[in-house]
């Protein structure tokens, strides 16, 4: 099973050297109080009695040298950490993006696009940070705590037990507080989410709110929710406000105890010196700082592990759609059998209801085929089966007489041009979007496609012409312009089949008519048009009527008016009586 953290394996060197250098720094730091106690015990005495200042100055310089060495070795560690963590993040990001791009649409829809995006940005980032922390901090804090403990035991084993008590006590308190606040994080997040929802709702419905003069109602709703949030945060803040004072209390009570117990050892038993006592106090303070750092680490890693879980699920997702790398489709003559559906059914998961069932129809090369039906009637699923974005659950789909699964998936996609409901353009230029259709297309071909898609007139007027910059999501073009450009992009592909999935809805009737004429004039191009409006399909060679996931009827407009109940109903609703019943 692939794990997100497995990408660490490319950074073995960094993972060994980084922490080693970090430990070196910790070791230097632990030496400092020893040297200081030497200065206090021996240095002052020597200076006082023999006028020998070297025992003060030399250890002092050594401490300074240790500090500089410590900095150098940490810098080495930070360097390795930045390489490993950023490199890890880069590899993981690439791998995840690749995985997503190759995911079947069924999986994409089951997981949800929003979740995929979050995984790619937030989750990978958190993992990346956690890798840096593994190298930089994970060993530092415990080493300081354990090192201080060991030093304390070396100095005086009896006093050292106070240390042990402190470490245990503080760990328990930190654990309880962290555990509590990690629980609370979820309920706080829920409150924030509901604020976001309300603000979103309000902005989207501003006209309705104003029409009902309900502004104050909304504001009041919001205020109640912020009050809820405030009350929740009150508790969280109460607990968080305890952390620092409590740890301060424990450490300083411990110092009191250490001073108290050492006093008799210094005075009566001579087993301890004042210099050693000061170094014990310093070790306690070092523990204090390190333990606070641990609590930050715990937060980082709890988040990282949640992210790891999500990313791992994605990385290990079994691909349900196999590309058999079979042969590429060959060419056939007009009128020959192009697509054949035999008793085809599809459901997302075993045991769930069929989205489409018992589909039976044939589309011949060159035919213009319409598909009509209400929402949820299975029109779009039908297209996805033809594109083999999904594999059928039952039945046979034949393409040019052979099982669709026998073709190479990419070669199959070369055969089909899809124009989506929500005409999507990518950030770039008009040219770069058109070239998505076919990389080697010449400017002449582009212009021809633009003309056929009725897009040339407006593209011509743009100062930069084909190099016109398209913003993210094509925001700087109107809906109709986007639709015409995405049709041009599909036409440039010169494919066997053109699928227009409700993709002329933003065009006015005259433009739509002209565009349809252009496409219908391409005799070799098999075209499948999905539409809500009867008027868009009237000239089609055959119309497939979908109803509740099944093919209700197939025929020309005139035939269907006679034999199809569903088609007649749709027709009547669009051409029948007006609202004015009187």
């Amino acid at each position, binding site marked *: 099973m692939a794990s997100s953290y497995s990408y660490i394996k490319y950074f073995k060197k960094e993972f060994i050297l980084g922490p080693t250098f970090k430990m070196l720094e910790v070791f230097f730091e632990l030496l*400092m109080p020893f040297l200081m106690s030497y*200065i206090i015990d021996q240095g002052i005495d020597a*200076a006082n009695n023999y006028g020998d*200042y070297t025992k003060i100055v030399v250890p*002092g310089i050594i*401490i*300074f040298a240790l*500090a500089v060495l*410590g900095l150098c070795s940490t810098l080495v560690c*930070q360097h390795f950490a*930045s390489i490993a963590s*950023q*490199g890890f993040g880069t590899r993981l990001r*690439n791998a995840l*993006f690749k995985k997503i791009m190759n995911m079947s649409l069924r999986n994409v829809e089951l997981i949800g696009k929003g979740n995929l*995006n979050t995984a*790619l*940005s937030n989750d990978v980032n958190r993992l990346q940070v956690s890798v*840096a922390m593994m190298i*930089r901090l994970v060993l530092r804090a415990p080493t300081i705590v354990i090192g201080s403990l060991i030093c304390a035991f070396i100095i005086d084993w009896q006093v050292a037990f106070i240390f042990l008590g402190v470490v245990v006590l503080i760990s328990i308190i930190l654990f309880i507080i962290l555990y509590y606040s990690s629980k609370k994080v979820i309920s706080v997040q829920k409150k924030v989410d509901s604020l976001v929802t309300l*603000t979103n*709702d309000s*902005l*989207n419905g*501003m*006209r309705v709110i*104003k*029409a*009902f*003069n*309900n*502004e104050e109602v909304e*504001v009041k709703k*919001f205020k109640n929710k912020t009050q809820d949030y*405030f009350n929740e945060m009150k508790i969280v*803040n*109460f607990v968080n*406000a305890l952390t620092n*004072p409590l740890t*301060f209390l424990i450490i300083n009570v411990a*110092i009191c105890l250490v*001073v108290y117990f050492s006093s008799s050892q210094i*005075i*009566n038993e001579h087993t301890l010196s004042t210099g050693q006592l000061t170094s014990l*106090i310093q070790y306690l303070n070092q523990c204090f700082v390190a333990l606070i750092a641990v609590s930050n680490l715990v937060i980082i890693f709890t988040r990282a592990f949640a992210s790891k879980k999500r990313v791992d699920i994605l990385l290990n997702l079994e691909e349900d759609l196999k590309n058999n790398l079979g042969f590429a489709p060959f060419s056939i003559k007009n009128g020959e059998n192009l697509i054949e559906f035999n008793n085809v059914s599809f459901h997302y998961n075993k045991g769930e209801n069929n989205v489409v069932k018992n589909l039976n129809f044939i589309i011949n090369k060159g035919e213009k085929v319409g598909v009509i039906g*209400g*929402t949820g009637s299975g029109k779009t699923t039908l297209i996805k089966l033809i594109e083999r974005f999904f594999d059928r659950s039952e039945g046979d789909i034949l393409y040019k007489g052979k099982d669709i699964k026998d073709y190479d998936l*990419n070669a199959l*996609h070369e055969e089909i*041009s*899809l124009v989506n409901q929500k005409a*999507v353009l990518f950030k770039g230029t008009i040219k770069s979007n058109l070239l998505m259709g076919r990389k080697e297309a010449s400017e002449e071909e582009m212009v021809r496609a633009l003309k056929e898609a009725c897009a040339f007139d407006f593209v011509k007027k743009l100062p930069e012409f084909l190099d016109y910059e398209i913003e993210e999501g094509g925001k700087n073009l109107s*809906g109709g312009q986007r639709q015409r450009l995405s049709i041009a992009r599909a036409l440039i592909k010169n494919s066997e089949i053109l699928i227009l999935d409700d993709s002329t809805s933003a065009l*006015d*009737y005259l433009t*739509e008519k002209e565009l349809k004429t252009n496409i219908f004039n391409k005799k070799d191009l098999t075209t499948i048009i999905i539409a809500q409006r009867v008027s868009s399909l*009237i000239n089609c060679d055959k119309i497939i009527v979908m109803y509740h996931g099944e093919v209700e009827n197939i025929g020309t407009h005139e035939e269907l008016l006679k034999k199809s109940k569903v088609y007649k109903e749709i027709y009547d609703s*669009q051409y*029948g009586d007006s*609202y004015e019943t009187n």
Partner: protein
Amino acid sequence: MKPISRLFSYIKKYPFFLISSLICALIFVTSMCLTPLLFGKAIDEITFTFKTSILILNDRFYFYLIFAGILIVLVLIFEFLFEYLNSLFVEKVTKDIKDDVFKKLHEVSISYIDSNYHGDLVSRVINDTDNINIALVSGFRQLYQGIIQILVTFVVMFVLNWILGIVVVVLTPFGFFITYSLAHKTNKYFKGQAKIVGEMGAIALEDINNIDLIKSFNYEDDALENFKSQNDELYKVGQKAQFSGSLTNPITRLVNNSTYAIVGMVAALLCAFTFKDGNILLGASCTVGTILTFIQFSNQFAKPFNEISSCVPEIQTGLSSLKRINDVLNEEKDVNEGKEKVENVIKTIDFEHVDFGYTKDKLVIKGLNLEVKEGQKIAIVGPTGCGKTTIINLLLRFYDPTNGQIKFDNLDTKDILKESLRKSFGMVLQDTWIFSGTVRENIIYGKKDASEEEIIEATKKANCYDFIMRLPNGFDTYIDDYSGLSVGQKQLVSIARVMLVNPKIMILDEATSNIDTRTEMKISAAFNILMKGKTAFVIAHRLSTIVNSDLILVMKDGKIIEKGKHKDLLSKKGFYYEFYNAQYAKIN
């Protein structure tokens, strides 16, 4: 108002918190600073006893320890109070800001809402207030705790031993200056990183959202290549950013440790001198206890300086968020200068020479004259995106005409109170609005005190009673804009909402697509009930529904190009004629 004075206006509402947390900070910081002093004194007692061979500790030793104990408890109590009061105070301030921004969004003109990305506005309400929260918490901690800590430590240090005091005061700021200049130099990496992260996010979002297209164009590999090259860029800047970001702590430690070494050396030397001849350096005598005290003082003194480096970016983010919020709060309220109320049925609606443009240089309506009488049905038709909703915007005064007047019963709409004007209208838009809440809450939105019978009657008339009853919890089923109801069902619910209020004039916007035939018929029927005997404006997408209208306005490219009755318009053989025939294609 300037951002800072805006913030101040919120802060000054809570003088109690400001003063009490200042008092708490004074108490706890002073106690905290004095504890090391007492430990030092206690150790001196030990040394003294040891040296004099009395072997019995003086009472002063126990006094120091007990006094230290009291100070520790004071720290516990007052640091807790300080942190808690500080966070409460900041939460209160941010709640106020949040509420006010949200309120402001409901007071500004619709054009402000239309011309800003909703995501951005939401982010101002939620994220920016959060940033201010974080900045205020650490800002106040720094201001109170940091400054007091520096001051108290400073005073105590100099009283105790001025030479060591100078050593600490001179050395400490080094760390601060080094990290500051480092942050300044490496800022470009962070900026570069933020930029690439933003771009990559946009690319990934686009690719994932349109993965079906990418697959159908066999574009996966190109997309991956593109992503990879961006990712490589990110690696280059990101690694440098990470490295320079991770330098702060080690450098601070270096400075602290160096101070530690130097303080230790100087203090030990002073000790030696002190032993030699009691009082050589005016009041700078030193003991072992002093060494310990100063080691801790140098940490205490440095801590606020070190924390500034982590607090500065937070405050910077907070300030830019404050500015974004202040921009919203400074936005003009929508003018509502009218005083008149319209109570009765409106007999006439007149558009007189109305010009209108969303921007000043581009008029979308020019010299529109229109007279609508009570009970008339006005249809507005034209290709999508031709500006049919402009008329609604003008009628409900979401926008005001650039020139000309709109009059209700010969009263300029500008003189009418907006609330009163809007009360006369019922509106069903194509983009139906369902907010997160129960079905019932959604329906009684315009009439909170509606009785159960009224609700049932309205939903029955709007053809949605049956399906609501089939929902898991009936009227109390929780729904939101994304789930629970189909597009058509949402439209029916919003019709019921208007049905319940039953206003005098109707504005109806037909749904274009994505609704199945049965639901569509239900909606038509409900529309008919709504319009019965009322003045109505219908935005129509299908011409069959408007043949009987009293007046048809034909719009194209944002302008009204033809107006008249169906038959007159047909005989004119103009755009409407063409439009009508195109829609009916082969049929007529």
